[in-house]
């Protein structure tokens, strides 16, 4: 780990939303440090709070409680010009190409607003040159065709490129890609990811990549880290190569075993891990202790359903995990109720 402070650190972050007169706790106690220049993937099923975490990292959403520390200083300590500069250093690329660009603006407008607003270029000529460079950087060539087009005249992939170019106008330090490629065709998805990797190397960017597609996460963050989330908590975080090859938390293992592979022999010999129940608990009544215990095949009564597991290291694993039996190195046996479940499928 480099000695410089993490670019963004979340400490004890909680976030709830009010939905028709009910308070719904989406994030409970997130502790996460995003190192400068790294690629961090946040994976999890829908409703696990990964998008909310991404928005808090990008400073677009305030936490209900807990602290957001940027470059070693809490966000509240930034005032005036410094706060404005900080605001521009954290950018986001959204999931839906159809909603991320304002239908009333041409591509030229979209890119020139931030450039003009923050006087990143001098005069009309400088503005045009910068727009030309940005469009070329995201492979939207020839720029001449793109500038006067409206978003509805572009394909999904092209729109995401405009989204990325827009984020780059203010020379950000960190970009949160919130499912940025999941609504684009498979073949174009990889070009976008490769472009993001290239831009990261060229511009020294930190990228937080949020996705529900584990295979994509493995490919994109192979050199970086991956964090697995379940019901508003991080259950496992570590270097991608360790987490994928040697998963520690039962939920991660279940996920990795459940994902089909684009390789017939490989995917048909994978042994899925049968969970004790299929239905996901509601956020309004999260199970006591480890939230996964009602579904976990290796559930140990008295341990898993009483105290709250914290992220900690565990024997035989480099990554951190929030599962008490694993932290204590206990062998994981399939719980007897699981056996009963198999008796009558």
């Amino acid at each position, binding site marked *: 780990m480099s000695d410089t402070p993490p670019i963004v650190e979340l400490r004890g972050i909680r976030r709830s939303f009010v939905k028709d007169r009910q308070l719904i706790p989406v994030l409970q106690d997130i502790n996460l440090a995003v190192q400068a220049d790294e690629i961090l993937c946040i994976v999890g099923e829908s409703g696990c709070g990964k998008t909310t975490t991404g928005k808090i990292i990008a400073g677009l959403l305030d936490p209900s409680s807990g602290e957001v520390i940027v470059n070693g200083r809490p966000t509240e300590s930034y005032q005036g010009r410094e706060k404005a500069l900080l605001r521009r250093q954290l950018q986001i690329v959204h999931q*839906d190409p159809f*909603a991320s660009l304002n239908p009333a603006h041409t591509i030229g407008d979209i890119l020139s607003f931030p450039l003009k607003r923050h006087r990143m270029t001098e005069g009309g000529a400088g503005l045009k040159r910068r727009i030309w460079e940005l469009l*070329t950087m995201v492979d939207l060539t020839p720029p001449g065709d793109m500038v006067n087009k409206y978003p509805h005249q572009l394909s999904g992939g092209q729109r995401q490129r405009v989204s990325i170019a827009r984020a780059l106008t203010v020379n950000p330090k960190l970009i949160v890609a919130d499912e940025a490629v999941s609504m684009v065709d498979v073949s174009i998805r990889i070009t976008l990811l490769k472009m993001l990797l290239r831009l990261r190397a060229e511009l020294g960017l930190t990228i937080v990549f949020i996705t529900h597609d584990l295979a994509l996460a493995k490919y994109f963050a192979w050199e970086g880290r991956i964090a697995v989330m379940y019901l508003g908590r991080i259950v496992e975080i570590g270097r991608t190569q360790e987490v994928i090859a040697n998963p520690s938390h039962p939920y991660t293992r279940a996920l990795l075993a459940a994902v089909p592979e684009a390789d017939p022999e490989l995917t048909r010999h994978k042994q899925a891990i049968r969970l004790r129940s299929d239905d996901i608990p509601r956020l309004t009544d999260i199970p006591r202790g480890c939230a996964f215990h009602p579904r976990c095949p290796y559930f140990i009564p008295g341990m898993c359903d009483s105290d709250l597991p914290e992220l900690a290291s565990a024997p035989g694993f480099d990554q951190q995990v929030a599962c008490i039996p694993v932290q204590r190195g206990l062998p994981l046996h399939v719980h007897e109720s699981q056996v009963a479940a198999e008796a009558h499928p």
Partner: protein
Amino acid sequence: MIGFATIATPIGLLIGLVCGLVPLAAGVYYKQIPVGVIGVIACVISGFACGFLGGVPMILLTYGVVLSYAYVNRQDPFTSRAALIDVTFEESRVEQFQRSMANLGNSIRGAWRALTRNKAGFLGFLGLTFFLVVMVFGPLFIKYDGQAHMERRVPGAFAMVAAPSAEFPLGLDWKGRDVLSHMVHGGQTLIITSIQAGIFATVIAVVLGSLAGLVGGVADQIISTIANFILTIPAFPLLIVLAALVDLDSGFLLAVLFGVLNWPTLMRAVRAQVLSLRERDYVQAAVALDLGLWHIIAREVFPNMVSYIAVNLIFTIRIAMYSVVGLVFLGLVPLKEPDWAIMIFTGRQQGVLFLPQAAGMLLSPIVAIALFQLSLVLFARSLEEIFNPRLRAGV
């Protein structure tokens, strides 16, 4: 507000002609004579109708349209497809002005194309133009026939009212006056009041709606409760009471009163629209880019609401006219003659409602109001397309 009647005078005609010279010269210079001529006519009409207020802006618009036909910017880097290095981005002030005028011209032509594409909408537009032309230019050609004409009474007839005849195409009213002159002069107060009322209601609704939508919290609660409260009281009876409350002589006060009463429905719609737009990704991206609250309201949220507001403005004008005519019809608002609504009211009051020969006096204002309302509704449809960038540009 500037009443139209006072301005539509010969001096306005002169101003219009002078302003028309600019588009004509541009037309000749850019070899677009027909477009230049249209430019001149536009300047004359607007100059004549509203003097300088109409003439001067028309110069810019028409010049832009003429330019857009001829404009090719050889040197604009984005159209010349050249590679980055050998492209010069320099552009002088004059060229920039030229380019912006060409863009203005293009957007006007785009609006015209969108307008003509929707048949029903265009029909509505024609209807409205007809009424406005009659209202502004009619009084010059047809003198207002104010005094009673005893001599026109048909011998032995019960009342002075006369059915349409060759000499009086729309017949005579109960004082033997020419109904046609009343029709031509009678539209102004009614139409102006309705438009003013519509604008007041829309402005209040948009301001309060965006406030409630953007700020939310307490402001939202207060505004919404007031709106619900006003909505519960049936609008028309309340208007009757208020109309009696305030002794209205001019249409302007009536318009303000109507505006105060009819903003809730539109406010609720605007608030819902703002709430939904606020959640859009591109608004959040604008927040991330630190483009400022003003930019978000004016450039991100508002352009997507313009077509919505324009359509609702038209509907509010329609409801306003409904209420104004209703009040006059019940005799609760003593508007001055000549006025379409008063013609109906006096028709009923004088008991001529059931006389067949009173058809001219009664039917003409009724048909006029019905047609005006109808063209408003139809025109609203093409407004939707004019302001919606997707529909207009994506042809």
